[in-house]
């Protein structure tokens, strides 16, 4: 199965997200990750979906998304930047050797700290976030959260 990212611009109205998600669940399509937020002018929202499937499935997903009445636009571009965010909570008692270098490599930083733990944050594409989280394992994270992808077309 291949990975595909699709964005949908929809009218920012009641129930629209469940229409989109229902389309996936009703047809047995995968959703790897999902992010939603209103666009600048608030009339529309952008839904970013990472999905797994084959070409035939992707074609259907795109057509079915088009078919929904509140759908304004389906963006299925291959030229985009993609960012995910991960937050990792680590106890202060851990040995932080090498952390600076890792954060640098992933454009990360420490975003919170108190007497017991720190939280580090990194934003990158999904693959790099995978690697980042793998690397962070050596600090025995207390918890990890990860966002879905947000996308922006570059062409």
């Amino acid at each position: 199965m291949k990975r595909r990212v699709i964005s949908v611009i929809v009218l920012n109205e009641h129930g629209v997200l469940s229409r989109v998600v229902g389309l996936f669940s009703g047809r047995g399509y995968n959703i790897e990750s999902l992010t939603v937020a209103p666009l600048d002018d608030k009339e529309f929202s952008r839904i970013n979906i990472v999905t797994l499937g084959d070409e035939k499935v992707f074609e259907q997903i795109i057509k079915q998304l088009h078919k929904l009445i509140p759908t304004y636009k389906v963006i299925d571009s291959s030229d985009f930047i993609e960012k995910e965010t991960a937050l990792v909570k680590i106890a202060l008692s851990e040995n932080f050797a090498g952390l600076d270098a890792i954060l640098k490599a992933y454009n990360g930083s420490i975003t919170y700290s108190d007497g017991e733990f720190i939280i580090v944050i990194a934003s990158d594409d999904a693959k790099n976030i995978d690697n980042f989280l793998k690397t962070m394992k050596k600090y025995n994270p207390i918890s990890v959260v990860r966002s879905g992808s947000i996308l922006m077309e570059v062409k």
Partner: protein
Amino acid sequence: MKELNGSQMICEALKKENVKVVFGYPGGAALNIYDEIYKQTHFKHILVRHEQAALHSADAYARMSGEVGVAVVTSGPGFTNAVTGLATAYSDSIPLVLISAQVANSLIGTDAFQEIDAIGISRPCVKHNYLVKNIEELPKILKEAFYIATTGRKGPVHIDIPKDVTAAIGVWHYPKEISMKTYKPTYKGNIKQIKKLVSLIKNAQKPLFYLGGGCISSNASKELRELIHFCQIPAVETLMALGTLRNDDKFNLKMAGMHGSYCANIALSECDLLIAVGARFDDRITGKTSEFAKGAKIVHIDIDPSSISKIIEAHFPIVGDIKNVILDILEELKKEDFDNTKYQEWFKTLQRYQQLYPLIYEDSDEVLKPQWVIEECARLAPDARIITDVGQHQMWVAQFYPFNYARQLATSGGQGTMGYSLPAALGAKLAVGEEVVVNFVGDGSFLMNIQELMTASAYDIKVINIILNNSFLGMVRQWQSMFYKERFSNTDLTNQPDFITIAKGFHCKGYNVFNKEEFQKAFKAALESKKTCVLNVAIDRYEDVLPMVPAGGAIYNMILPSYKNKDKK
């Protein structure tokens, strides 16, 4: 600026949309709406006896008239009863507007009495739905609902209206026109693609039209007949397309698919250019998809882009309204010097198949054959509007009733909803006035909405119900007999009620029929009667629907009826 309450707005909108009949059933949350229905004079409200029936009646009203069907139900169980009707209409792309009442906004989400997430439930079985949060948005939503139901690929639209909104007062501003940023169906086919199709037709040796339900909903029957005769290209029809071509049109190879004609299925299998028109490649037509029209270039004309290449890869898609596209094809064809004699060889081969393997049955004088009953009905009431329920009788009607015009048949194709036909027949009758409406129904199906006999007599809606009674859930029995070694698990209906007494109980007329003569007499009496009639016709219990393609098989591998008495040279 005129101010109205929500219920008045609903009635005003129905008036503006020129709705003549509304089917429904009242209840607590719908009380305000029903109070307005009581006061208004523009449309007739038919009180059905079960909400499912309201939807099926509205659905068949739409199928027969080409207009939009409208139903009103109350919240909770009123709505959930209606869901099967929504699903049925959705599967067959029937324009319908369902207005359901909902508990008041303040109660939504509290598990209040008769509260259910109606919008959540209807979402997968409607083209679009709305929960009306406040009175200001009601006029626009009403207008949009009718617009969406009747444009593009048609379908049911559901509006859920909380009780407080039906009482709230707001400004009545009904939009004249709808323009939606996000919904713009494509009506004109791409002219480049159409030109390409014309050259494909010119280069084909064995072209074939494959007509689906979209031909009917686009009202394109006349144009298609013209195109097919202009090109001299044969056509197969789906169940939903029956009547697009005249039954006796020589280019009509009849229904294709699981119970289609041998000739139609061979034509699909052997053509080199398949022009699918408003058809969606249902698995009941394609059989095993890898074997379907294997050597053919596939052209797919449809108003709904998402139905293209969903099941069978289309090499040449044309998105647009069928009538427009067909007219454009005709125009382009007429510009060229087009030789329509070149498919004669192909057509002769197909005609030979038709002669060798026609749709036949073995008639009998001992026991009534359902096929004979169907043919006899066509002889006695040619041109009647035909409704069917679901099962063997449905397929026999599809095979043996000579459909001659579009919208002559209403049947549940996509869902195969048992219980459809009696309420559908009533809706159909209200749509067609004086015309004769005949409902072919199985003994199993008839019991699923039999209470609608009461609606028929309460409003003097006269239809003729012909129960093709085999004391079996016949279609399931047939599968059990062919694929489950005759283990007739839960399909024997020998203990059936006395349908005649039941008919009389509902103030309808009833006739038991055991032989040909009795059928003719009873049917003539039914034609003359002013009342809805039930003809309980005892047919051969073990008659099968043939030909048949076993599920999942290639459509050219058919179980055929016995041609032993035919000259097969």
